[in-house]
């Protein structure tokens, strides 16, 4: 008699140069049966080339020495994350995540749960043998109450170790899974049902319909410390009491295949379309020197965008510019600040310790920063701030009623525009007003109605300054 040619599985197990037809599994172990069921379904459905199996860490770690399809080895518990990425980047792939109960139910449970919740396109084959096989018979989340293992030597005690985890039932709380079933490989009749379940899970993948989950009650004679027959009987008698077999959900008939990927522009086309106006490239100009500005106030006063506006104006003038904000809790907790450096050459430090120009919209910032201003520098401070703290000698302090004026004009959020008016009128940025205006207009790119309004506010502020300040 000629031997039957194996399809879907390799002829021999070839790890470490041994060419054996025996598997690496113990006699009576369920893994081998489940491997065979997966192989048969894969071959019958004609999806061998498209199939990628993510192999777990556990007794099935060497699945790839058996399955003749694409194989990826996972870290312990991470097969669903890896499977997620494979299917998301290879949409034609039939992805299988094959996992034990320690792998899936303990270390990797959140990855399993989240992948199921997202409805990832993969078939998850979950081998529940109630124990950690590979590492020497430790307690698993699925270990039965009272069951002795190497880490529950007196039997699993619910008081300290809790109760067995019912993964099918937990996943059934989620909306996305298409198919969830618990089967067993304890005897031939049960194996026939398991075969149907495997096939259905893979059909769902073949048709691109979504997430499928099959749990196998599977014997582990070695770690139960019994022979094959007793281990199988344990599965059928004890485990099924805790883990009833059957289909928990099957929406495969109605599930829709996912929509095709939309057509999109190239990266270059996309970014070119997103940028209407173009700042010229910066040019080195040694004579231009360097100007350091600090903008400070409460979060929400538009301090950060005022800084960006000045930096953008500098760019229009072919200057180098950096902008650096306060961020994180500092930004939310009250005060906001940003540093802007404008230079005729590439900029070193972007943070401003000694500003040439300090804009302050609130008292705490004024008190904190005014002493740092360089001699010859300028402080523009909102007129509501008491000037108890003295500025260093040679620093000019200009009170500006930015907040009051903006309220008077009916746009209390535009106090920052009033400060820009002051910067322009005082000429302290060294930038041309036309560039500051263009930058201001551009900052309202998404709200064009505000462009006109802010121009009016600028005029009002400058008129006020002409009347009230010794310029």
């Amino acid at each position: 008699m000629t031997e039957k040619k194996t399809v879907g599985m390799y002829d021999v197990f070839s790890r470490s140069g041994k060419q054996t037809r025996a598997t690496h599994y113990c006699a009576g172990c369920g893994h081998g049966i489940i491997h065979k069921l997966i192989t048969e379904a894969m071959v019958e459905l004609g999806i061998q080339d498209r199939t990628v199996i993510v192999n777990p860490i556990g007794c099935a770690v060497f699945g790839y020495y058996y399955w003749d399809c694409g194989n990826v080895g996972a870290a312990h518990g991470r097969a669903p994350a890896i499977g997620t990425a494979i299917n998301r980047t290879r949409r034609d792939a039939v992805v299988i995540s094959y996992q034990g109960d320690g792998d899936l139910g303990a270390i990797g449970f959140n990855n399993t749960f989240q992948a199921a919740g997202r409805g990832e396109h993969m078939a998850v084959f979950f081998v529940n043998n109630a124990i950690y096989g590979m590492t020497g018979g430790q307690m698993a989340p699925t270990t039965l109450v009272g069951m002795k293992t190497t880490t529950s030597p007196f039997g699993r005690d619910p008081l300290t170790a809790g109760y067995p985890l019912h993964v099918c039932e937990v996943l059934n709380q989620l909306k996305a899974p298409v198919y969830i079933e618990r089967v067993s490989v304890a005897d031939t009749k049960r194996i026939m049902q398991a075969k149907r379940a495997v096939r259905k899970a893979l059909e769902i993948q073949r048709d691109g319909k979504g997430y499928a989950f099959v749990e196998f009650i599977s014997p582990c004679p070695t770690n139960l410390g019994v022979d094959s027959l007793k281990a199988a009987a344990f599965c059928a008698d004890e485990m099924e009491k805790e883990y009833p077999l059957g289909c928990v959900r099957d929406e495969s008939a109605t599930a829709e295949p996912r929509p095709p990927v939309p057509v999109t522009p190239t990266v270059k086309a996309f970014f070119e379309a997103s940028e209407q106006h173009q700042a010229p490239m910066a040019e080195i100009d040694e004579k231009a020197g360097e100007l350091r500005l600090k903008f400070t106030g409460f979060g929400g006063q538009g301090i950060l965008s005022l800084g960006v506006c000045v930096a953008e104006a500098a760019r229009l003038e072919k200057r180098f510019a950096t902008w650096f904000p306060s961020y994180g809790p500092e930004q939310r907790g009250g005060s906001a600040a940003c540093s802007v450096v404008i230079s005729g050459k590439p900029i070193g430090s972007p943070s401003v310790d000694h500003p040439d120009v300090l804009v302050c919209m609130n008292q705490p910032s004024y008190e904190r920063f005014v002493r740092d201003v360089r001699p010859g520098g300028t402080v523009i401070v909102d007129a509501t701030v008491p000037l108890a703290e003295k500025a260093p000698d040679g620093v000019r302090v200009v009170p500006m009623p930015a907040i009051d004026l903006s309220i008077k004009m009916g746009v209390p959020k535009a106090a920052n525009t009033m400060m820009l008016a002051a910067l322009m009128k005082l000429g302290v940025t060294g930038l041309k007003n036309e560039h500051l205006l263009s930058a201001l207009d551009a900052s309202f790119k998404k709200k064009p109605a505000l462009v006109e309004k802010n121009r009016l506010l600028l005029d009002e502020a400058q008129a006020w300054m002409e009347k009230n300040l010794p310029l």
Partner: protein
Amino acid sequence: MTKFVKGNEAVVIGALYAGCDVYFGYPITPASEIAHGAAKWFPSVGREFLQAECETASIYMVYGAAAAGRLAMTATSGPGMSLMQEGISYMAAANLPGVIVNVMRAGPGLGNVYPEQGDYNQAVKCGGHGNYSCVVLAPASVQEMCDLTIRAFELSFKYFTPAIVLADGLQGQMMETLVLPEHEMPKPDTTPWAVQATQETRKNLITSIYLDAPAQEAHNLRLQAKYAKMSADARHETYLCEDAELVLVAYGICSRIARTAAETLRSGGVKAGVFRPVTLSPFPGAALSETLKGRKALVVELSAGQFHDDVLLHLVKEGGRYQPVDLCNRMGGMVMTVDDVVAAARKTMKK
């Protein structure tokens, strides 16, 4: 074409021009704008974006996409980077390319969200288990946040090991002009090794297990031989070093502060320059030792001396002799001022 963007946004733009197929990530300050940008821009140009359930998932998603022959990346900061260490070790072991951006914040523990460089050893000496090396690149501008992200993909695919872009909160948050790349990078052919779910690649296998010690040792030796070749891609930058009597040694944002400090020192009569490693792994040790020869040196870093230790180590390795190198550092999210560096440099000059 130019754009005025945050460093974090520049990373995303760089990734897209590098041909990155997919972004996986979990939010964390000060790296979150990378996820925000990726969520917006990746799908707009037909790439995949997925918010992972945690950083452990992020890194294994990068592993999975790389195994499938795709260009994948993630970005995070301190605590997330710590969670990724196991996965980075797995990727290195399985010869998988992929890019991880660490926008460093202050630690240890939760620390805070302000800039630090305390993850130097974790990245450069490899915080995961086993003998492996990553490519580690240290940008020092918004432009480089983009350009070195592209370079990270190139080197990662050249050496088949993960590449880390080691940035910091300041660079992630700051805005500067970015000159966008001229064109997209050509895609590498991954058919010979990746599991692409096709007949042609059916026999390909991605794994990191060699249960037998001799096989695992042989694997280790192959990896080490590969890492030894990386030194060809060591890069550095010098500023005002030609006639310098004092060299400030700094990477990342500290090199920018050092630049301004060197200018300030020169205006005060001290001839100072800056040596800046662009690649931290491979480390430009030969160039460092050459530049420091006969000069005083001061390391400027935002960590406890991790980088300083490495500078000493490389000097000894290159020259075989110990040279004193001073240290000016801050931690905890505090950034040294230019004045701090200038004062430290003057002290070094007096020695």
